[in-house]
C-alpha cells in the first residue's frame, strides 16, 4: 500500500488511516547519559535460576522431620524435577503405598532403599517383590519465614 500522498478530502475509514509516528531506534537523552545504561538488562528470575525443565517441575509441601539433616524441615516446599534420572545420594520424592514420601535415594548393587536424614527415623526398604517408584528428584527447598 502506498502512503505517498493523502487526499485530504476523501473520507478514510479510521482503521485504514496510517499513523505516521515511527519509533526512533535510539534514545534521546537530555543531560548526562546514564552510566548504567549499557548494563541494565533484567532482574534475576528466581524461577529461571532454579528450574531446568519447566514442564517437568512440580512443587510439594514436606510434612515431617525425617529430612532435617538434609536441610529440609517440616512445612518447607520442595521443587521436584521429574525429567532428571534419579541417582543414588539424591533427595527424591517416591511413591510408597500410594503416598508421596521425601527421602534420600540409596542404590548399591541391586539393592535400593530410601534413607532418612535424621537418625531417629527408620529407612524404608522395599519388601520382597515390592518395587519403589521414584516420582521425581528434589532440586531445591524453599523455606518461608514468618514476617
Amino acid at each position, binding site marked *: 500500500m502506498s502512503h505517498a500522498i493523502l487526499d485530504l478530502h476523501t473520507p478514510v475509514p479510521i482503521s485504514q488511516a496510517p499513523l505516521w509516528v515511527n519509533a526512533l531506534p535510539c534514545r534521546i537523552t537530555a543531560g548526562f547519559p546514564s552510566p548504567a545504561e549499557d548494563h541494565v538488562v533484567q532482574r534475576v528470575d528466581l524461577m529461571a535460576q532454579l528450574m531446568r525443565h519447566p*514442564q517437568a517441575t512440580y*512443587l510439594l*509441601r514436606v510434612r515431617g522431620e525425617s529430612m532435617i539433616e538434609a536441610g529440609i524441615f517440616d512445612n518447607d516446599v520442595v521443587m521436584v524435577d521429574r*525429567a532428571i534420572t534419579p541417582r543414588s545420594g539424591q533427595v527424591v*520424592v517416591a*511413591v510408597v503405598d*500410594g*503416598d508421596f*514420601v521425601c527421602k534420600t535415594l540409596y542404590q548399591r548393587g541391586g539393592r535400593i532403599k530410601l534413607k532418612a536424614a535424621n537418625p531417629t527415623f527408620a529407612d524404608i526398604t522395599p519388601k520382597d517383590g515390592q518395587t519403589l517408584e521414584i516420582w521425581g528428584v528434589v532440586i531445591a527447598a524453599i523455606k518461608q519465614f514468618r514476617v
Partner: protein
Amino acid sequence: MYALVDGNNFYVSCERVFRPSLQDRPVVVLSNNDGCAIARSNEAKALGIAMGAPWFKIKHLADSDGLVALSANFALYGDLSDRMMSLAAGLGPQQEIYSIDESFIDMTGVRGDLTVRSHKIRSRILQWVGIPCGIGIGATKTLAKLGNYVAKTAERKPGSYPEHLAQVCDLSALAPTELDAVLAATAINEVWGVGRQLSKQLNAAGITTVLKLAGLDAAMVRSRWGVVVERTVRELQGTSCIELEHAPKPKQEIACTRSFGHPVTELADLNEAVTDFASRAAVKLRKQRSLVSQVLVFIRTSPFRQDAQYSRSTTVPLRRPSADTAVIVTAALNGLAAIYRPGFKLAKAGVMLLGLQPDTVQQGELALEEDEEEDRGRLMTTLDGLNLRYGRGTVLLASAGLASDNRVWAMKQERRTPGYTTCWADMPVARA
C-alpha cells in the same frame, strides 16, 4: 505428514499424577455438578461404565467395585495440558492444539524414523508430566486420528491390533497388506467426522469397515453423501484436505448452561443464575470479538425425577447486535420472566447467544429516538480487565446475587481434588 498426540483418559490421568493410589483402580471424573461421567479409567471402562453415564446410576459401584468418582478439576487439567502440549510440540515444526488433550503436529520435513521419534516424545511426556499418551501418524489428519485410535486400542485391548502398533502407530509406515488388515479390522464409526447417523447410512449400504470406506470412488461418494463425506474418503485415501488450524475459529454460538446444585423454584434465584450465565457468555462473546443478535434462555426440571415436568425456552431478539453484558443480561431476564411458572422444581437453566457476527461489522440504524445509545465498549473492556486481574466475579451485575454462599443454584463439586499445581495452599504433600 501429520501426528495426533492424545492423552489417554486425560482427566483421570491428570488426577493420578498427584494421587498415585488411584493407579490401577476404576476412576471416573464427573461433569459440572457431579452429574455424569466425562472421563473413565480403563478399569472403569471394564466395569461397563459408559461415557456420560449419570452418577446416580453408577454410584453403587463405589461400594461393590471400589469405583472412585471425582469432580472435574479444570484448573489442574489446564496446567497439565499446557505442559503436555509444549512437549508434544517437539515432534515437528507446527502444532494445532485441537482440544485440552489432543494436538495435531505437522511433521513435514522431519527426518529420521518418525515412529522412534514419537516413542521418545511419548515417554518424555509420561516421565516429565506424568500423562500417558497415544500417538497416531498418517498422511492426513484423518489418518493420523485413525492411527491414534489404533495405537490406543492396541495398548488397551491386546489382540485387537498387532502388538507393535500399541502406543505409537504410523499408518504410513505399514506394508500395504498390514495396512489393509488394520483398516479391515476397524469400524467406520471410529473415523474422524463419521457420526452415528452417517455410520448407519453407510452400514446400510454395506460399508462396514474403514477398508471399504477408503476404497470407495470419491466422485460417487460426493453425489450420494455430499462433499463432507467425500472429503473424509479422500483423506482416508491419503489426500490431505483438512489443513492445520492455528487459531480457533470464532464460534457460531455461545452457550452457558448448567444444572443447579439443588432444585430451584423461586424466580429470584433463577434471576441470579441467569444473570451469571448471561454474564459469562458475554465475556466469551467479547473475547472472540463478536456481537450477538438473539439471546435464548431456557429452564427445565430434571427428567430423572418423578416431579411435575416443565421445560420452556424463548429467544429474545436484540434491537441491535451487542456485546454489552447489561444488554444481554436484560434480554435474558426478560425472556426468563416470560417463561417462568411457579411451582416447579427446576434443575437446569441456560443462556445461549445466537446469530453471532464479527464486531467490526455494525449495522447502523436511523436515530428515531432522541438520546443516542452511548458506546459502552470501554466499560466492558474495564469490566473484563478487572475480573481477569482480580478473579472472576470481582465486578458483576448486582442481579447475579452477592451472597455467593447462599446461592442455591451454585454448582455442586463435592469430590473435587485440590488445585495441586495452581494454588499455593493446595500443594500436594510429601511425608518426610
